[in-house]
């Protein structure tokens, strides 16, 4: 190659471009292409097979007038709000406990985190067994003599989401604890020394100094939990399969059911587009806070 001439732009750094082909294909075909395809087809009346027979917002009207979808949304809201708050609180509390120079930190950490290694299916089935009304916790407590004790969430439509919540928090809170612990370890030890010199009590140091300093970690944890909540599917399938009746239906399950069982693709596409919209609604303020501010400042 003649070193005096600027080489052709396309062939500069060619190997790097070749190495990035899988990424480029994934981004263009699957992420951008696939998402666009689904959104476009959500405006059609596709049933067994996708067809470009546009019907405007019909699918969305049907979706929002479907009681099953409304239940799914309600359930996700209950699960989401509780899971968000409890996971954050438990995760931070455990991390703060573990960060207090205790003995056996590694043991406790191992115990809190191991459920995260397990799949939602395993989690769901394990808790399905523990919450089994005839043999599980309810029967054991009744056997102790409290015969009127009733805790049968998986068969009680009113509280079934809380039964799933117990399992979900069991699986995921250890992970948030680790994220929080990493955040706590990232805080300069001099901060603690300074707070002690100033005579600030420990709890107040956490509330006034440490938690505000960990804002980015909390935001990250929030985004992680939130993106997990919207995906909620396997756990429900394994633990209740949406039952009793439709009492524990969730949007992700609604989508799969309409796409692959009810053979009503258009409904599935519309529902999945709604999921996408809700993710965007969550992500945009976050992205604006995280990245938008820096550009202006």
């Amino acid at each position, binding site marked *: 190659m003649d070193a005096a001439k600027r080489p052709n732009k396309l062939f500069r*750094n060619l*190997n*790097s471009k070749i*190495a*990035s082909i899988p*990424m480029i294909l*994934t*981004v263009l075909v*699957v*992420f951008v292409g*696939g*998402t666009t395809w*689904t*959104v476009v087809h959500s405006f059609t009346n596709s049933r067994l097979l996708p067809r470009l027979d546009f019907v405007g917002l019909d699918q969305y009207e049907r979706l929002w007038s479907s009681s099953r979808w409304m239940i799914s949304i309600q359930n996700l809201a209950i699960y989401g709000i509780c899971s968000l708050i409890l996971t954050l609180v438990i995760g931070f509390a*455990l991390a*703060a*406990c573990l960060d207090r*120079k*205790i003995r056996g*930190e*590694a043991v406790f*950490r*191992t115990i809190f985190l*191991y459920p995260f*290694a*397990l*799949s*939602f*299916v*395993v989690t769901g*089935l*394990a808790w399905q*067994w*523990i919450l*089994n009304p005839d*043999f599980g*916790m309810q029967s054991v407590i009744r*056997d102790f003599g409290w015969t009127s004790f009733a805790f049968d969430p998986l068969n009680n439509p009113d509280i079934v989401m809380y039964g799933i919540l117990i399992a979900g928090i*069991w699986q995921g809170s250890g*992970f948030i604890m*680790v*994220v929080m*612990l*990493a955040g*706590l*370890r990232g805080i300069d*030890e001099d901060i*603690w020394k300074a707070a002690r010199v100033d005579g600030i009590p420990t709890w107040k140091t956490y509330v006034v100094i440490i938690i505000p300093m960990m804002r980015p970690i909390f935001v990250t944890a929030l985004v*992680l939990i939130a*993106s997990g909540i919207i*995906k909620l599917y*396997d756990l429900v399938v394994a633990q209740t399969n949406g039952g009793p009746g439709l009492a524990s239906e969730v949007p*992700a399950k609604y989508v*799969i059911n309409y*796409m692959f069982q009810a053979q009503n693709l258009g409904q*599935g596409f519309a529902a*999945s587009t709604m999921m*996408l919209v809700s*993710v965007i609604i969550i*992500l945009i303020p976050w992205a604006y806070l995280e990245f938008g501010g820096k550009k202006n400042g």
Partner: protein
Amino acid sequence: MADAALQDGPRGPKPKKSFSRANIFLYGTLLLVSIYYLLPLYVMIVTSLKGMPEIRMGNVFGPPMEITFEPWVKAWSEACTGINCDGLQRGFWNSVNILIPSLILSISIASVNGYALANWRFKGSETFFTILIIGAFIPYQTMIYPIVIILREIGLMGSLGGLVLVHAVFGMPILTLLFRNYFTSLPEELFKAARVDGAGFWGIYFRIMLPMSLPIFVVAIILQVTGIWNDFLFGVIYTRPATYPMTVQLNNIVNSVQGVREYNVNMAATLLTGIVPLVIYFASGKLFVRGIAAGAVKG
């Protein structure tokens, strides 16, 4: 880096006396919480070692009076899904057959890609990377059906190969991020020195970068083994009953509506499915933590 920070000591104040009230409260809380976390594992184990009669009359938390391994044998080789009664072993081997090529494919693509993004940026590379990371937040549900069509077109729908491809695609954002951040954290001058020494794209990758990145590869492997092994959604959609991964088969066994429910077999099957990621978790310890922390805090 968050994972490096985890390896430092604790930062909080040290409790003063070992038997102070605060201390008892602290350890008491931790022990109580530990019970919540350990209970399911314990119940699964004891249930799987009991006979059905004992389960029917007994206490779910009580240790087995008579230990039997029959549920384990039955779960592995006899449990039924639909008309198939050859046990979970089929799902296990399916999962192994899915896992190994997925692991190799996803990690090789992502590591080379992360390296290209860290050291050989080209016009547009950052844009694609940004979309890739945003893509990690898109609900799978919006991409599932187009992928069905793509796989059908290339003749991989329902086969293990198709699922391998899906795992490579959806593992790409987090793995690429992991490798890109790692390679970016290596001193840039090392890369420059290698270029002055006449090494090219692949020469630097194989001779300089790879030998220095063993830890991050271990982290990536841990992340992918647990992720792929635990996958349920993609398994359900992109495979046929004959090629179902273990999680899907497990769910079908336990939640099958036919026949008498054998809780001991169910729990043995559940444990069998959980063993692979649990072994990985307990064996890798800090690296597991490091992996999820590094991947997550930056994501």
